């Protein structure tokens, strides 16, 4: 503390002396700074955990958050929010097809009215732990992992592949909402198909908030080294962009 006071006093004295100088030095010119090079191993990017991952996919692909990724078990890949009675029953190992029946039993009613059972925000889902969440209420896991683990890249691929597949399928089955720049319903797409490059550009803007470089576009066209269906191209191009580190880290 004393050292700081002395230093501050000294600085003030020097400032005063400088102010009385009849021939002051010209003000230094501010030099433009180049962006610092991030080269040492201790620098860290921020890992996009399940909430951010799911939210960003939801926004980019115009999917409700609940629809981003669901497993065949009926569980969402990752979710958060108050715990409903059915969430609780799932945690007790009640199979999906018996949830209604068990819910009626618990409520002593002829109808199941699923609603908030525990009114606290609680992460849950098939891959929520590996995607950086905890699950206090349903699994007793209070602490989230500090950084990604070996199953995290797998879970990220799985979530993104599911979300991209869902969006592509919806756009094939109904009026396209995201893949509007080429004919997603076409059975064969190659690099010369109208709208393919525009789709790559659009996906970059949706997912990474920037346009692709020419090199990135060329690399992505590698997906069409062999022709794909429109739906496959949509899904895979979405998958590639949304599983690059630029999307997963910030």
């Amino acid at each position: 503390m004393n050292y700081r006071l002395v230093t501050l006093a000294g600085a003030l004295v020097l400032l005063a002396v400088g102010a009385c100088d009849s021939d002051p030095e010209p003000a230094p010119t501010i030099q433009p700074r180049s962006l610092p090079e991030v080269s040492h191993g201790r620098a860290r990017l921020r890992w996009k955990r399940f909430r951010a991952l799911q939210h960003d996919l939801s926004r980019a692909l115009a999917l409700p958050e609940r629809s981003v990724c669901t497993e065949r078990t009926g569980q969402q890949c990752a979710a958060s929010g108050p715990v409903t009675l059915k969430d609780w029953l799932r945690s007790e190992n009640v199979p999906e097809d018996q949830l209604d029946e068990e819910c009626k039993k618990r409520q002593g009613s002829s109808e199941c009215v699923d609603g908030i059972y525990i009114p606290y925000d609680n992460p849950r889902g098939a891959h929520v732990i590996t995607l950086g969440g905890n699950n206090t209420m349903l699994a007793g896991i209070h602490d989230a992992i500090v950084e990604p683990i070996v199953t995290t890249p797998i879970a990220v691929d799985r979530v993104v592949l599911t979300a991209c597949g869902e969006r592509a399928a919806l756009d094939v089955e109904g009026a396209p909402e995201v893949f509007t720049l080429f004919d997603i319903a076409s059975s064969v797409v190659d690099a010369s198909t109208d709208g393919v490059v525009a789709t790559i550009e659009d996906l970059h803007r949706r997912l990474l908030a920037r346009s692709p470089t020419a090199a990135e576009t060329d690399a992505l066209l590698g997906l069409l080294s062999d022709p794909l269906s429109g739906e496959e191209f949509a899904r895979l191009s979405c998958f590639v962009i949304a599983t690059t580190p630029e999307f997963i880290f910030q």
Partner: protein
Amino acid sequence: MKSSTRRTFLTGMGSLVGGLAGSRLVGPGTASADAANPRYLFVLTAFGGASIVDSFLPVAASESAKPGELTTFSDDLLDTVGGLRCVRPLVEEAASDPRQPPVRYAQKSFLDRHGADVAVVTMNHSSVSHPTAQARSLTGGGTADRGRTILETVAEAHGHGLPLPVVNMSSRGFSLAGTDSALAAELRQVAVADPRSFPLGTHGSQGIVRPLDLELLERARVVRGKVEEVSLFSARHKNTHSLQRWASLRERAAAVEEADLVSKLLLTDLPGLPASPDLALIRESLPSVDYDIMQAEAALAFLLVKNRVSCSVSFGSLSLATRELVDGVVTPSVYPPEGFDAAHTSHRVAQSSCWSRVLAAADGLIRLLKTTEDPSRPETSMWDHSLVYFPTDFGRERTRPLDRLAFGTGHHLNNGVLLVSPLIKGNRVYGGVDPDTLLTYGFDRETGEPDKGSVMVEEDLFGAVAHALDAPFPGRRDMPALVKG
């Protein structure tokens, strides 16, 4: 040397030979030409304070000077099997109140089947705070091996080269990883919240709702690599810890995917995805595996080790409401919330019920291990190389209102734990219990003789488990009295 042996072993897995004709072992029919020294650790976490004097170190009322004041048992409630003693299931006390949890499995059954491998080891815990005590029970007080958990220490010795050496399915303080930042990344634990969905997370596309041809996924990943090569973001951040770690994780993740774990570990049939081919075998020993999370965890623990995915697995579900197969009928069961800690309000029944549930899962797991040929050591069972450790938070108070059967108890540092393994000298109590206080005392670590002036602590148990599983580390506290050979 060790990794070389492991690689040799893994390579050998491809040319494994058939099983033992006429053997009782129901193994995968596999053997390694250059078998390593496999050791498997199963940690069954007894959440909430599993009391040793309410299970395998009980005191009969006739032995105590204060039977009505202490948590003793009437003589007719105790059984003796070999050199061990246990408490009969308190079925009548549990049935006296419909709010009480069920008691279905007898401690005696466990001793009848596995008593020769059971060691009751007295000890003192170091905390009566649940999460702190739980974590310390796995880290040996926090300092036994550089802050590592016993799972990590065993994996350091026996887990290199396995896809997921340490898998932790436990809760709260038992779910925590160790604190040694120098631990190799490949040995860091994978925490699992749900044993049923976990296998799906071992592959990027297998079993997803809208299937994708694997060849197309591979094509996309190759293209992704090329995109990353020209990405300004990747170029700018390539030297960061985050991206270097991510690249390393992706490489290891590829090995996990190649191991085809979905088909080996899945505990239930899903559309287009059949359950593990071992599920029928598992149901014989863990009949409630399809309904009860704890038994599902035990099943996954078995499959992880049997399929050479892991060598250290922890489990111990906290789920309270479940369903169990009772005499062939699926029966709802509600176990106490917070496990053994329900002793706060109903000591005897809570202890009896939770021991029943934990031991039923352990029994099923051990029977599976006993009847399954070890994948890397022909003509031996997996059990020959295994140890089951039952850590718990702490013990319970020993006093009760005079002669009351229904009462609550608080936390107590003094206790004891179970170790079950053919690698230790079982059928024995290490230490003892004072019948007039119900407090346990220690033993001589060289001879195993009871020593009322000594007490074992978490670090001693950590050392004993590591010693039994041939997992060396600096400063290990060996326990020759307990460990065979």
